[in-house]
């Protein structure tokens, strides 16, 4: 009976020691679950739109809020609970004519709350000083460059996004943005989506408007009073230009077996204790280990024969 107990415990200790030792070098993922598309924000309107030298850019700002992760701590320091957001997906753009992936780019910046307030102040200042229509948040090219430069300076994290264009080249399926670190709930994201100025849009069916280029359409709306556009025309063009985005996060929960040296040493100590007890038991009762001795003798004979 004692032999059975000791051998069983020694073998399980040896196995635990082996697992802990290898996991201390390469942490093992024991459990992983994820939410494939968790909304990070409700559909967000652009905070600023600008026509720069060669692009038409949209700036979206939203607060990062999500629920996720483990609600409890791991019951032992042998384990590490990880929650991370490896990817963001941005969608909401469509109605293009022959859009290619190098016609569009997107970036995501993580900024803190105080930077958000400053960005909003900068946008308001530029809007106040511009002569553009109040229908859209259209800022000047220079003002936009200053705002983006400020965001880049204050960004906690910058992520480049890859566009996925639909095969028909009429809409952007999504932007995929691989994050280097998990965005912090409570901070904010500033998302910049830029198009080449000559990107053309579908759906311009308003009488008297022959423009399809995005920069020209933005210019029409911005200077609607100059071009003496009717309200209905402005509304129709606004629907094309004024695009909300939705941002989704892929969330992953995982549990890592991440032993510290103290855990490995404890397992080794137990193994040493049980093996010592087996050796002691063998000294007092060698006949109980006759089976092992026979096995060892047979193995030795086989080895020496070879």
């Amino acid at each position, binding site marked *: *009976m004692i*032999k059975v107990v000791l051998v069983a*415990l020694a073998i399980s*200790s040896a196995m635990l020691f082996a697992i802990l030792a290898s996991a201390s070098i390469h942490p093992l993922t024991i*459990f992983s679950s994820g939410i494939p598309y968790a909304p990070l924000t409700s559909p967000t309107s652009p905070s600023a739109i600008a026509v720069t030298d060669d692009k038409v850019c949209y700036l979206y700002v939203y607060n990062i809020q999500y629920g996720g992760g483990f609600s409890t701590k791991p*019951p032992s320091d042998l*384990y590490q609970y990880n929650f991370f957001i490896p990817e963001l997906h941005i969608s909401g753009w469509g109605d293009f004519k022959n859009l290619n992936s190098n016609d569009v780019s997107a970036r995501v910046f993580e900024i803190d709350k105080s930077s958000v307030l400053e960005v909003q102040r900068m946008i308001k200042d530029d809007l106040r000083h511009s002569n553009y229509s109040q229908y859209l948040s259209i800022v000047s090219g220079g003002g936009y460059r200053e705002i983006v430069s400020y965001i880049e300076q204050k960004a906690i994290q910058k992520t480049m996004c890859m566009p996925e264009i639909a095969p028909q080249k009429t809409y952007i399926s999504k932007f995929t943005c691989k994050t280097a670190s998990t965005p912090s709930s409570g901070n904010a994201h500033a998302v910049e989506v830029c198009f080449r100025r000559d990107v053309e849009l579908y759906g311009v069916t308003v009488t008297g408007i022959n423009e399809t280029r995005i920069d020209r359409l933005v210019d029409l709306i911005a200077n609607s009073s100059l071009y003496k556009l009717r309200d209905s025309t402005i509304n129709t063009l606004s629907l094309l230009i004024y695009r909300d985005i939705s941002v989704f996060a892929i969330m992953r929960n995982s549990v890592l*077996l991440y032993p510290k040296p103290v*855990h490995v040493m*404890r397992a080794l100590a137990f193994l040493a204790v049980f093996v010592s007890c087996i050796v002691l038991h063998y000294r007092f009762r060698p006949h109980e280990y006759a089976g092992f001795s026979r096995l060892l003798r047979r193995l030795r004979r086989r080895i020496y024969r070879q």
Partner: protein
Amino acid sequence: MRGLSGVDLRRVHEHVAFMANRKLLSYSIAIIIANIISALFLIFFFYAGPASPMWSSIPLGFSIFIYKILISIQASRVGRELNTGEVQIYLAHTLTRTEYLLSALLVVGITPALVLVATYLTFLAIAAPLSYDFGSQLPYLFAELMMHATIVMALAIGGHENAASIVGVMLALFIWAIMGALLFLLILLGANKPAFYVAYAATLLIAMATPLTYRFTYGTIPSSLTPLSLPDPLLVLSLSTATFIILWMVFFIRFKRRDL
């Protein structure tokens, strides 16, 4: 070395070693493999999930199931010894009836329970949990295996070796379902019906036979669903422990007088 009532503990120890070792490949290796599976479950599942009774009890339940099968098989072997008369050989030489039954208790019940509890304790010592609630499962674990051993040994000592293994395996497989069905019945029946009290008594009996499973189930059912408060798991553990101690004392007394 003699203990109380003239039991020679050295003889008991020799016979226990003989019983445990004689079918080395079937019993000892099986218990070792079951222990490895328990250790793996502990390290990969027990702590890894959210700290909830369900997460920790289900993988441990699988290990207990394996040990219960082992206990049933070993008890059946004791029954075979009694039926075939093999026990006469041991009693003719050195063992008294009390010593024989004591070694049977050690091999059938104590050894598997000891191995599983020791594995659990070793793991707790290595992992050093931040809360010690997980250690509170140990007495329930021990009581569950001992109650299972008591039930199958009752059949084995009565000479029903096949019933011991069949009932043991069936209990191991279905006890959780029986427990769940009884609790469901309690919720369905509602109080102030004769059938409810019958179901309540049956639940208490089954709970005593499987205190760890009951503890887990008790934790998952909201008390608002049951018209009458279910027995506290600690009370069930106490009753279960008292029951198997009393039953084994009865086994010893009856085995002394049994015509072999």
